[in-house]
């Protein structure tokens, strides 16, 4: 064997060594622990825990409709976030990428919602959506759509959507920052060359910007999926999962099972199943994006 080559490869590992060490200590152990607990009936307190095999998983997969309903709710919000939130982020990043007047000010302003504390977000949106004194209802009455007024967070038809809007509003700033950085990384020369060739904005966007941005799109959409599927703090501060189960999401279910019902082992099984669902969705997303690149 070539000594030089081995040395070379070992040298390459040095680059990932710190990350791998931290990963092995701080990620693997909790991971392992959760898997281990997911096959027990541990209540989180008693030192004694009984091995129950796959009973938790069996119950979860066959007899827990509320968990799957919560999964569907989170998926619905995720679909909205993937489309509306990311399109908004992209559009704003696109506008700020051009040398627009006041571009720097906008850049700062769009990052405000992510920076703001969840407490403020909860208070503000509870006020906006309030049934009697809410800003949204006032606005609707003002523009003559008084028929639409309602308590937005308490109405079965609008609660999930209302929560999704808060989430998207709070989240688009993240995507905006990443997409802007991506757009700025595209060499200007490419645009100039295209312009010289007489291509209009749309063609430039389709032929130059899009293909180069595909990896960034993948990054942003994966982060959006993970961030949105794991939504819960907004829900706790607005609807608490109600009315009924209309705004329940997987994390609120897991917390309720773990803390409310003291079924720690079962909650861990939920976490494992949820993790696999996230993994699957992310893989599908990467596949779809890569296929789009080929088109």
């Amino acid at each position, binding site marked *: 064997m070539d000594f030089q080559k081995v040395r070379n490869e070992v040298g390459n590992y040095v680059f990932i060594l710190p990350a791998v060490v931290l990963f092995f200590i701080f990620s693997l152990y909790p991971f392992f622990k959760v898997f281990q607990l997911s096959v027990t009936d541990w209540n989180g*307190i008693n030192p004694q825990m009984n091995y129950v095999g796959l009973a938790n998983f069996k119950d979860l997969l066959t007899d827990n409709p509320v968990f799957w309903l919560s999964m569907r709710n989170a998926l619905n919000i995720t679909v909205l976030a993937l489309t509306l939130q990311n399109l908004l982020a992209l559009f704003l990043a696109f506008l700020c990428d051009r040398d627009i007047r006041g571009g720097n000010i906008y850049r700062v302003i769009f990052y405000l919602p992510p920076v703001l504390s969840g407490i403020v977000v909860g208070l503000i949106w509870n006020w906006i959506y309030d049934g009697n004194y809410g800003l949204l209802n006032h606005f609707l009455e003002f523009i003559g759509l008084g028929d639409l007024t309602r308590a937005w967070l308490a109405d079965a038809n609008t*609660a999930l959507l209302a929560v999704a809007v808060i989430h998207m509003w709070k989240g688009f700033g993240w995507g905006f920052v990443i997409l802007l950085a991506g757009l700025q990384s595209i060499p200007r020369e490419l645009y100039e060359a295209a312009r010289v060739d007489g291509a209009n904005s749309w063609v430039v966007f389709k032929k130059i910007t899009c293909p180069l941005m595909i990896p960034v799109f993948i990054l942003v959409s994966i982060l959006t999926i993970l961030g949105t599927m794991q939504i819960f703090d907004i829900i706790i501060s607005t609807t608490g999962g109600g009315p009924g189960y209309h705004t329940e999401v997987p994390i609120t279910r897991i917390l309720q099972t773990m*803390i409310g019902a003291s079924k720690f082992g079962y909650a861990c099984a939920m976490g494992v199943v949820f993790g696999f669902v996230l993994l699957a969705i992310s893989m599908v997303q990467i596949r779809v994006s890569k296929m789009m690149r080929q088109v």
Partner: protein
Amino acid sequence: MNNTFKKIFIKSFVLLFFLAGCVGQSGRNAETVTIWHWMSDRDDAFNELAKRYTEETGVNVKFDLYAPSEIYSQRVKGAIQTNTLPDIFGVLGENQDFASFIQSGYVADLTEALNAPMDGATWKEAFFEKALAVNEFKEGNPHGVKPGIYGLPLDVSTIRMIYNKNLYAKAGLDPNAPPKTWEEFMEHSRILKAKGLPGFVSGFGEIWMLDALASNWAMNLMGPEKVFATYEGKVPYTDRDWIKIFALFKEMADEGVLVDGTVTMVNKAAEQTFANERATYAFNGSWCVNVYKGMNPDLDYAAFLPPLISKARPMKIWGGAGSSFVIHEASPRKEAAIAFLKWLTSDAQQVYLAESTLNLPANKNAVKEISPILSQFAGNMDHVVHPNVYPVHEKPEVREAFDKGIQSILIGEKTPEELAAEVQKVKGKALKR
């Protein structure tokens, strides 16, 4: 080429090592009594009391705050796993969790200490009976815990109905005659509605509020025996009486008694609504007195018992200890911990705590000069019962289906009959376990 990032890197590393050098491990005194708690608004008062105790006795006491309560619970559970529980802590959660803590040997039995004579009386006598009862496991309790008292209450709270006298007068109703029965309640609500005045608000988004109200009414309508029989699985939720309880909520929804949005309101939002006179009725705990006082000192309101469904029985409401401390069974400083808690729950300290944290004290003698409205909440503890003292408990998953189902009724998605069948189905599954 500009190397800003490199510079930042290097500078930061220098800073890092410099600062890391300053990190000194705080030496921990072996004789310090350590207390873990989650009550962020009482942290300052606790620390002040700890200081006073050290001055008086020379014993060091250290309060560590871990808030919010969710993270506190996680830390306690982590401490169980690593055998690092402090000398004094609090158990949050359901009665079954408390039982589990005791049975696993983490919580000391305080019965003996409470019954030991102290200044001519016993320590036990200082407390409101109902406040101690929450921390007591009686003979034949459903969890099989050895009978005894395992926790010490710091304060008491009760959950009652309240009404806005001012709005009552506006509606032409007698501001000193809140409704006594369900019929009166509905009639008054109709009058309020006709006058364009707001209705009833509560933090129904936090479903335990719904649970409390529904439970009050169920106990009143069918009596504890039948409710407990339901918990044991001997009476189904499809029973006529349970459907009647569900129907009460449907009636409220149909008549538009509730303030819009109540069904998903968190309690703090509901309190804002009532404090700003956007609701005439509320169902809330005694802590609300201080919340309202802070937000609207002029608010003119009074407490009353939830309207009776049946006149055959008195109305009982939930109440008891607000928060309690327990002592770690394996603590080497058990005696010192008990001594400190004795001091903490004695008159002078309870008065200080009550004044500085605006809570109702658990010590009877400390309740001397409290506002009339607060005394309405605390005054008559005869009507008070706490689910912890029930001989049987409903399973959490059944309770959730029950409370969430009432939310569905309130938004007109389910009928009482449908809900009854659904809850019974969940109950059936829970009984099989």
